[in-house]
């Protein structure tokens, strides 16, 4: 951060441009000299991975859009045409379809990393909120994108999810009509979903820019959750983190490529290779895997709560499960960021992670299935339990932990922790946050 404002970079042309539009000195400052804590672990790779995935999705998507037909009569066959007759169309489509999956894998890891290391805490609340906005936009984009191939799950998934909005009192039916562009999921629905599916990634891109700007104001958090105290605690972003991000990205892409080329339909619903049949309901409608935890929460509220009907209750719970993330920075009152120094929170973090996985499992099963043969425990019972725990964790547990948990002593600085010894001068600048 100490390094040059308006550092002259490059040759004459670069300087000429830079003195009129300082893009080069901006990149120099924010991506080359930018000082980052030197103790990141590999979980700090996912920002770069997510940026890559977003760009990959946009590029493959634009080429797919050149061949795709957003018309109920043509959509399914046009996707098959892409798979068969368009040069490397199968590669574009499989990268795009599996890209959605890997985008969500990366974003969920990124978020759990933020939760473990308290990356949402002061001064990064807005950074976190922008991230949650990106998540919401991603979910909308993914949902509408899944409708486009117009297979059985596309159609019935769209029908089920859009119908949820009808639970909203007074305006619900109008909202559904607006989403459909008519009185059922039909051609108008497909057309507007295609238009929005094309639009939303650009909005995501915009929010990502805000996310990064905000990150560069506060600087990155780190596994210790202790602010850097000076140059001894940081390295310049380039070459240290450009190199590390490249290595991590290459490993991630290797795994991604394995699925694209050798198991391209592993994450997909087989039934979506059947063209949409508006008169034939599939026996088991399931969303894509990355929505399953939220789907489980939706279905777990299958009882009326006072005057709130079950359907509305489920919808409130499902959206609440996402909305609660917005206020997370104010629910977790603990002054210590990293779970490394929070002996109780650490356990509840892992329990929460398991709870989310359990919700995902529940979302993929029929509610009335038995969990074990011969045991009267149904999937829906686990759904109640895991839904309860999800909200209990955020609304009850986190505020209480902030008050009652006794954190371990936090190192005075990153260098002190890394070197295992004292670091002169660091304690002098320590802020109240680290003393807690």
């Amino acid at each position, binding site marked *: 951060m100490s390094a040059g404002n308006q550092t002259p970079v490059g040759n004459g042309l670069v300087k000429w441009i830079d003195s009129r539009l300082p893009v080069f000195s901006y990149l120099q400052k924010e991506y080359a000299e930018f000082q980052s804590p030197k103790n990141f672990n590999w979980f700090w790779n996912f920002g770069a991975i997510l940026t890559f995935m977003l760009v990959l999705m946009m590029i493959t998507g634009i080429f797919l859009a050149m061949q795709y037909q957003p018309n109920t009569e043509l959509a399914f066959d046009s996707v098959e045409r892409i798979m068969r007759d368009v040069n490397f169309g199968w590669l574009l489509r499989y990268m795009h379809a599996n890209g959605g999956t890997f985008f969500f894998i990366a974003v969920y890891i990124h978020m759990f990393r933020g939760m473990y290391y308290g990356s949402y805490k002061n001064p990064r609340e807005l950074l976190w909120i922008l991230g949650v906005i990106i998540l919401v936009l991603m979910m909308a984009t993914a949902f509408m994108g899944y409708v486009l191939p117009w297979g059985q799950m596309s159609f019935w998934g769209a029908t089920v999810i859009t119908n949820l909005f009808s639970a909203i009192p007074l305006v619900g039916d109008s909202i559904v009509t607006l989403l459909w562009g008519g009185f059922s999921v039909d051609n108008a629905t497909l057309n507007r979903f295609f238009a929005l599916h094309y639009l939303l990634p650009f909005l995501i891109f915009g929010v990502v820019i805000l996310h990064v700007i905000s990150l560069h104001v506060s600087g990155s958090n780190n596994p210790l959750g202790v602010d850097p105290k000076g140059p001894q605690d940081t390295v310049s972003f380039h070459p240290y983190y450009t*190199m590390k991000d490249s290595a991590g990205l290459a490993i991630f892409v*290797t795994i991604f*490529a394995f699925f694209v*080329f*050798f198991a391209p339909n592993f994450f997909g619903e*087989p*039934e979506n290779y059947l063209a949409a049949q508006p008169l034939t309901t599939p*026996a088991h409608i399931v969303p894509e895997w990355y929505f399953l935890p939220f789907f489980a929460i939706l279905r777990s509220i299958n009882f009326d709560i006072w005057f709130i009907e079950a359907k509305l209750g489920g919808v409130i719970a499902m959206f609440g499960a996402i909305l609660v993330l917005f206020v997370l920075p104010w629910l977790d009152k603990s002054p210590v960021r990293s779970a490394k120094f929070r002996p109780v929170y650490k356990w509840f973090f892992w329990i929460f992670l398991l709870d989310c996985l359990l919700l995902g499992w529940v979302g993929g*099963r029929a509610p009335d299935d038995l969990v074990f043969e011969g045991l009267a425990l149904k999937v829906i019972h686990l759904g109640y339990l895991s839904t309860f725990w999800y909200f209990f964790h955020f609304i009850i547990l986190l505020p209480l932990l902030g008050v009652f948990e006794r954190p371990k002593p936090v190192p005075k600085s990153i260098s002190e922790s890394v070197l295992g010894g004292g670091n002169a001068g660091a304690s002098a600048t320590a802020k109240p946050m680290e003393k807690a």
Partner: protein
Amino acid sequence: MGIVSKLRRTAAVAGFAAVAAMVSTAALAAGDTKHPEERDWHFSGIFGTVDVHSAQRGLQVYLEVCSGCHALKQVAYRNLSALGFTEGEIKAIAADFEVTAGPDSEGEMFQRPAIQSDNFVSPFPNEEAAKAANNGANPPDLSLQVKVHPDGANYIHALLTGYADAPDGVEVPDGASYNPFFRGGFIAMPQPLFEDGVEYSDGTAATVDQMATDVVNFLQWTAEPEMQQRKKMGFKVVIFMIILSALLYAGKRKLWANIDH
């Protein structure tokens, strides 16, 4: 995904082929659907390739047996060159079918023999005609059947070879057949394959098992015509990425060697 949910999805898809009412009563009567047997396919695994000879025989079975009811509309005759058919053979296969073309200069539609660039001609002009001719059931398009069913290849083989007499006490509805691999047990499709139902030109004995295997090899190719190109490219990409990852990782180690972190 657990095996149970996969099975449930299998059942869900299969249900589409049969008359809805038939399935709902059948589910009560026949009990559990049988699991398909796991078979060793030439195309499975990351090294798997198309068994071209078997797929060629499978085309013959499709043309002589299945194509009376089942369409294959995603595949064009020209695509058969990937299975080793010559241009002459492809033209001859296509010429057996008639397509409606036009309008001509008089404004009239006319019939002409299919050509290489046409997609496989469907047996029925529309779904209603297909249902009317098949006791109310719509025979599914076969282009993607291997992908539509979880464990599709094993399922289709099991279904084609799995026709049996109904167990005692199970009454098969009129117009349906008993097949324990089909959801509910009653399928609208009568047993399609019988010993020596086709005469293979390469002298292979046309047992039911052989014909079912050949059809599955053919339908695997119609479902994923890109499979071999995909796997071949996959090896290059994945090996390249592993080497690149290793180099970048080594570079990172070297760069960070003198930083305490």
